């Protein structure tokens, strides 16, 4: 997958898949595990759908799986019909197989990801022809594999690209304050941060004091410069970091850190990329992680 800049809202890219979501959908539930997990999406009006993924060593019988899911749901409202039917007609939309029956009943869709041996499933709470045509069909067609040397991570308005060795370790989606934490398994750690309402966060101050406050007390800043990121005003801080627990706090090695923060005045958001590791030369370029800065 080649990194390409585009607006982040309405985009979901996670471990091994990516989707363009309908504009008014927002994630309200998430999972960070690679092998299995799910996302929930709501719009302003209602619950819109659940995306889940799970391992499947070989191509599964997707129509059968979707039918069983439909039957399990139907058992609650009409056990007799659930017992009587043995299959349902399926529809193919893009890479997805889709099963539905009546209007306002749940609709199920599934696709097998050969590259990662994963079954990706959508469940929508209420089927209608309009929703299928306007929301779900473009969603199915937007499905893309996310398994290149650089993997896209897009959620809650953040859109970033990281080398494949980085794994997500934590996600903290507070309102207008989202943080994603990653590690490469070799002591390099990286955080992506996105804040809203910069007018109140900055309160007329320049970026560096706010930037310093985001780094916490454990760091010793060794260099702070104003550093524009693309066309946005920005701040770069290089710092040293020591352990915070037990003997590590007393005798631990001082690690290197670098943090870049910028203010997207059009979008009215603050973004930060903070990296720590044993060697400063290993840090990623901000423009590679956020290709939108190059545009």
């Amino acid at each position, binding site marked *: 997958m080649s990194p390409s800049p585009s607006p982040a*809202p309405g985009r979901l890219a996670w471990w091994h898949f990516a989707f363009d979501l309908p504009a*008014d959908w*927002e994630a*309200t*539930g998430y999972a960070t595990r690679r092998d299995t997990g799910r996302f*929930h999406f*709501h*719009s*302003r*009006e*209602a*619950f819109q759908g*659940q995306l*889940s993924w*799970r391992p499947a060593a070989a191509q599964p019988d997707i129509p059968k*799986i979707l039918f*069983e*899911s439909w039957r*399990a*749901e139907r058992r609650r409202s009409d056990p007799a019909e659930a017992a009587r039917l043995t299959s349902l007609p399926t529809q193919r939309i893009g890479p997805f197989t889709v099963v539905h029956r009546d209007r306002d009943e*749940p609709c199920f869709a599934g696709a097998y990801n050969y590259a990662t041996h994963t079954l990706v499933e959508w*469940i929508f*709470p209420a089927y209608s022809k309009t929703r299928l045509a306007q929301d779900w069909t473009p969603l199915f067609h937007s499905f893309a594999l996310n398994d290149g040397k650089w993997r896209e991570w897009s959620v809650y*308005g953040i859109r970033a690209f990281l080398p494949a060795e980085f794994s997500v370790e934590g996600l903290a989606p*507070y*309102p*207008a304050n989202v943080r994603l934490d990653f590690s490469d398994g070799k002591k390099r750690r990286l955080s992506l941060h996105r804040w*809203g*309402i910069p*007018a*109140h966060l900055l*309160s007329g101050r320049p970026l560096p004091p706010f930037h310093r406050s985001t780094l916490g007390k454990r760091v010793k800043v060794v260099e702070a410069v104003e550093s524009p990121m693309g066309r946005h005003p920005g701040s770069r801080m290089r710092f040293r970091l020591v352990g915070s627990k037990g003997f590590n706090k007393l005798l631990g090695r001082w690690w290197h850190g670098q943090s870049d923060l910028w203010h997207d005045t059009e*979008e*009215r*958001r603050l973004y930060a990329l903070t990296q720590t590791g044993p060697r400063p030369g290993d840090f990623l370029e901000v423009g590679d992680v956020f290709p939108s800065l190059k545009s």
Partner: protein
Amino acid sequence: MSSLRSKAEEPLPRSFDFAKQLAAVPVANLKARAIPDGEPGLTLAIDLNYPAWIRPITRLLGLRGEKKYRLEGLGLELYRFLDGKRNIGDLIEKLMEDHRLSFLEARGLVIQYLGLLMKRGLVAVGVPK
């Protein structure tokens, strides 16, 4: 298929009852007094309400008669917008427009800040029948 069955039989999440929540009207405490202090922001004082048996001796015990709260930033912005007519949905719309927030972001912030203001006795929320 056992894992499939257990997954499929889990109920889907229920929808938030957005409509009822958005129609609720937050009202500022009329007894809160603004105290001018020349600083940016707003300081509000609220009279403390002690149990009847202790009221005659509150001064003797050195208990405070009022409590002060300082509002700044988003809390102040929301507080100034309360006129007893605008409902939570209006507050959310205002935040979305003024700060380019998504609906759920703005909703989260409004609920969070109104909760804090309610806890301090500065705001009450009325739910229409």
